């Protein structure tokens, strides 16, 4: 056993370095600041760049510029920063700019509580942009997950050329934990596909279910990037067919790869009638609650989602099928449960949520499961 001891935020930074991240820009905000601090220790010795923006909007702008020059970029913030990131999240979605955003969530609304955790932004991360085009959101449950999922996040960002969120939480980001480095399970690295064709480069020409191949601004071939509605050539267009195709592709490129994007853990117990669905660090309390219930002779099965967006619809349908009842537990007053109800339409879905600045204790979860 070779244990390391670090907080979730350091683990995100280590995951980013393992993924080959070479550019970070961010603005200090509790509880995400230590990601920035760690990147500032880790990037310069490896020849990378780490910048403090004049605000969150600028930090995302620096990231967008660097990503378009070919860098693998990370930024980190919390809810109030995500609000300011919004215009650039839209830019990165629509113009297919790969970047990873660590959102160490805190209790909202607004400035809320800087040092109190909550899964405040689960819908906000998905919908806090114009147009409704999708993003990827991964939810870690502990420090080890922070490291592993950050590598996945970079892989997804590179492959699909879209923003990928790490939906962390103050209670993970600022909690130090031990974990066994030998247990780390890092995926092989994926790099964005360079354009290698012999025809002139058309920056947004792509298969209908793929992100376009990439060439950097500053490379031999001229590259056009724009935040405006564009055709494959990167120029503004008003052609309805071209617009429709581009809009559709932003959805299809993720939906077509759902199976690969879907990450989860499960504990399916034979002869149980209840499936408890959760994500993030709440799923750890669910595990404790399930173990205590099993001891009492009331076992349940559990499903812990690591990919929240796009919603893993087929996984949910398949896993929920054998169960009479679904219980969803969230560290908010009900955000993701709406997706689960939508997908498992007609199933009995019960919910327990809490938003008071503290973790949901296993006893509350047991109560929610037992109170049918």
């Amino acid at each position: 056993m070779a244990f390391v001891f670090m907080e979730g935020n350091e683990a995100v930074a280590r995951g980013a370095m393992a993924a080959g991240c070479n550019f970070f820009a961010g603005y200090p905000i509790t509880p995400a600041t230590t990601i920035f601090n760690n990147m500032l220790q880790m990037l310069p010795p490896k020849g990378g760049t780490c910048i403090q923006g004049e605000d969150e909007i600028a930090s995302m702008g620096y990231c967008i510029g660097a990503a378009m020059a070919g860098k693998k970029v990370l930024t980190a913030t919390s809810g109030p920063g995500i609000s300011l990131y919004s215009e650039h999240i839209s830019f990165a979605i629509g113009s297919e700019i790969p970047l990873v955003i660590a959102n160490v969530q805190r209790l909202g609304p607004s400035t809320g509580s800087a040092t109190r955790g909550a899964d405040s932004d689960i819908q906000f991360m998905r919908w806090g942009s114009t147009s409704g085009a999708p993003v990827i959101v991964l939810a870690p449950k502990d420090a080890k997950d922070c490291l592993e999922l950050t590598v996945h996040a970079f892989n997804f960002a590179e492959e699909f050329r879209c923003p990928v969120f790490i939906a962390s939480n103050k209670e993970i980001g600022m909690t130090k934990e031990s974990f066994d480095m030998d247990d780390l399970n890092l995926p092989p690295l994926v790099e964005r596909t360079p354009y290698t064709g012999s025809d002139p480069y058309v920056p947004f020409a792509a298969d209908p279910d793929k992100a376009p191949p990439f060439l950097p601004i500053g490379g031999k071939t001229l590259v056009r990037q724009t935040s405006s509605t564009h055709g494959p050539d990167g120029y503004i267009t008003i052609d309805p067919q071209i617009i429709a195709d581009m809009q559709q592709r932003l959805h299809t490129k993720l939906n077509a790869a759902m199976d690969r994007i879907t990450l989860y853990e499960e504990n399916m117990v034979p002869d149980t009638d209840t499936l408890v669905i959760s994500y993030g660090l709440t799923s750890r309390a669910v595990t404790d609650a399930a173990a205590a219930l099993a001891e009492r002779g009331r076992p349940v099965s559990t499903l812990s989602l690591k990919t929240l967006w796009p919603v893993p619809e087929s996984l949910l349908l398949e896993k929920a099928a054998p169960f009479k009842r679904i219980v969803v537990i969230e560290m908010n007053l009900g955000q993701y449960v709406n997706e689960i109800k939508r997908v498992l339409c007609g199933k009995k879905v019960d919910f327990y949520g809490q938003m008071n600045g503290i973790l949901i204790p296993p006893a509350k979860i047991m109560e929610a499961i037992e109170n049918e």
Partner: protein
Amino acid sequence: MNSFLNTSRPPVFCPGCTHDRITKSLDAALVKLGIPDNKTVIVTDIGCSGLFDTFFNVHALHGVHGRALTYAAGLKLADPSLNVIVTMGDGGMGIGGAHVLAACRKNLDMTLIILNNFNFGMTGGQYSATTPSDAQVGSEFLNQAEIPMDICGVVESAGATYVSRISGHDDGLSDELVSAMQYKGFAVVETLGLCTGRYTKRNQLTPKVIDQMIEQRPSPGGMIARNQRPEYGERYRQLAKEKGKFPEPFVVKKQFDMPDARRHEVVILGSAGMRIVTAGDMVCFAGISGGLNVSIKNDYNITVLRGQSVSEILLSPDTIGYTGIESPTVVLALSDEGVARRQKIFAGLSSDTYVLKEASVAIPDTPAQVEEIDFKAMKIKKTDWALASLAVLASQKRVLNKDMLVFALKSRFNEKVFNLSMETVEKIL
């Protein structure tokens, strides 16, 4: 190359618009400069100035209103070999004011061309940050209650190393753009021009009037002597190079058999300055060296030198799920502030819980076993009480033993601090 203009995308400005002349002057400047097309990027934002990138056959990045300088900085930092040109209107300059100031302070080698035509042309001639108070604009009387901003004055005082003001109709514009682009540092060129679609319809602005405006407020003339300093990217890379080694994670192997290898929940209640967080880390390092899983959460004020400091530590032979404290096995009560922060836990402690309380600290009634210790009488400084209480635990082989504590101190501290901390430990052990 004799022109960088994109022949398939000719400029589409209103007849008489100064932007058209500036486009041609920028092209002439790029030709004079002689940099290859793929070594130049034009970065733009929203408004008529945001059309510039499409008229040139160079790299192009068009983004959100007022943010062009932020993309430009990202590009320049990522690829210092690029000739980065930013075009921005008086609108983008206003909405992106913070970025203009930051760019002036940073001094990256980029050229910002501000196309000041005194209004928001694209949305109907509303007033901008540079509209004169007596102008007739599309936002009724609102400009009359404000004063326009002096762009050159602002950027100069913000630290721009090269600043000039020039009419968009000036024959010397392309030469001015060449010197701005050749200048190594952040160069700001404010061009004054006519918005024929909106502004000049209701205001008497002509190239002659612009010349008079420049006479009244002359150009700072390029290089600003008092602001000269190294280019940001070069300075950044030089400073970054001096940064130390990559911080590898600290790996701890199991080396001791825990005296009391069961789940422990340890709560340390203290105040800022008592090294509570450090003591918490010590418990964790000790636990890991005993083969346990650990987690720790700290609760302290944002004003870090004042108020409570509380550490909550879990140690367990099993994987830790819920990281909250449910039934503490050990509570170290080291300050009244810390105790006040967790006052509610005392009544609910079990009779097995061990509470170590410093003699000067008052605690609420509790069914737990309470031991009092007078660190003051032992001449242990307050800053060492947390460490001393770990030594008390080690002396009882509770949670950790002496070997584990010494190991933890050695892991975390340099030799000097280690020796000092051992002086405290040895007063107890």
